[in-house]
């Protein structure tokens, strides 16, 4: 079908793109906007690698249609550097060796961000629950859980 004009807020800046509304949000981010930080893993919502924040909620961008970006507020990994919570989470991931191959990392950081936005003082169980939709095949989940716990403590200081 022909392209339509989509307007949305991405990483706190207004964007308008003309694209095929039948594309996935993941493809708009990567192909139309060149934001390659959001990764495609499974493509069916089962790995969490493409997690972004859509209207305040963590979602897998492979399961959102481009048309559904209309008027939305979206945060991706690229927006994390300009955000205190995002920056601290990233620093804790690096310092805590919560990154190995790095493919799953943007998705984990976005899930951690969604958690800490809603719950600044999560328990370890709440952290595990929040990242249960993200798969990692390298580090295991303990360094990732530790990094999010440390980020929450750092931000609380």
């Amino acid at each position, binding site marked *: *079908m022909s392209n*339509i004009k989509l307007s949305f807020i991405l990483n706190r800046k207004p964007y308008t793109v003309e694209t095929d*509304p*039948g*594309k*996935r949000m993941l493809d708009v981010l990567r192909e139309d906007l060149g934001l390659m930080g959001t990764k495609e893993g499974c*493509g*069916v*919502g*089962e790995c*969490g690698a493409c*997690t972004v924040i*859509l209207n305040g*909620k*963590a*979602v*897998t961008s*492979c*399961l*959102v*249609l481009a*048309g*559904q970006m*209309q008027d939305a507020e979206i945060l991706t990994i690229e927006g994390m550097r300009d955000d205190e919570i995002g920056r601290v989470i990233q620093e804790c991931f690096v310092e805590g060796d919560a990154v190995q191959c790095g493919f799953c990392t943007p998705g984990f950081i976005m*899930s951690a961000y969604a958690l800490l936005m809603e719950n600044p003082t999560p328990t370890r169980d709440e952290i595990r*629950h*929040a990242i*249960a*939709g*993200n*798969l990692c095949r390298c580090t295991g989940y303990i360094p990732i859980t530790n990094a999010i716990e440390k980020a929450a403590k750092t931000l609380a200081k």
Partner: protein
Amino acid sequence: MKIRNYIQVKTVEAFHEAAKAADGPITILAGGTDVLVNGREDDVYKDCTVIDIFPVEALHGVCETENMLLIGACTTHEAISHDPLVKQYAPILAEACGAVGSLQTRNRATIGGNLANASPAADTMSALAVLHAELVIERDGEARVEPMTAIFTKPYKTNLAQNDLITTIRVPKQSPNVRYDYVKVGRRKVLSISRMTVATLLEMDNNGVVTRFDMTVGATFPRPMLFPDISAMLVGKRPSEQDIIGVAKALSDKIPEIAGIRKSTIYKQPVCRNISERSLRKLFADILK
């Protein structure tokens, strides 16, 4: 995903207009978590007008009448799992919604979309069945009410016409005395498709005599089912250990009877029996002492 046309609507009336005006088949997009997965294969939606109803505010949220919870069809599973009214009056549904997929999926997937997709493995089906939930379905602005279990014809198929829109899920409010248990069996705790769910809802009088009992199995039969013969096994009785064993056996015997003997039957039948026994022992713990 190849589609013919994409229309986003903000009201139910606008949906009806768009559905009427559509030239050819339509696909209703709610959360999109099933449509986008199906759309990966064989251009299944290439001739379809996709009508996106997720922005329809009237289809989101939970409200109550004297006897019913009214759940908007576009309410997400995550929203339902945390909703105070659902937790108070239908906690088994809150639990079932919390068992769906991952947080990311629950943040997007909707209860109405889940029903319309008609997957026999949908986590909420068994809970909605024992709650005797009903659906409000609108066609061209005319609303009708049907029992939830009545719309399914076979796996992934319903009797809904393409311009039928599920607008509301009506769930009878449960009294605080109602006891429930919901068990999901999957390959892992999160992000797993149900291999089986067992949902139980019951009520007893002050003497421990069962006044109401519904127990069913999900992800096992071609469509959600209720079993009056199973209910009759406990209603009017103060259950004993033998009754529990009998109900669990009768329920698990439904598997080959209804679904036929499949490769999974050798696994599912004993699992159903064991989970059912465990659930009933938990629910009747004070009676069995």
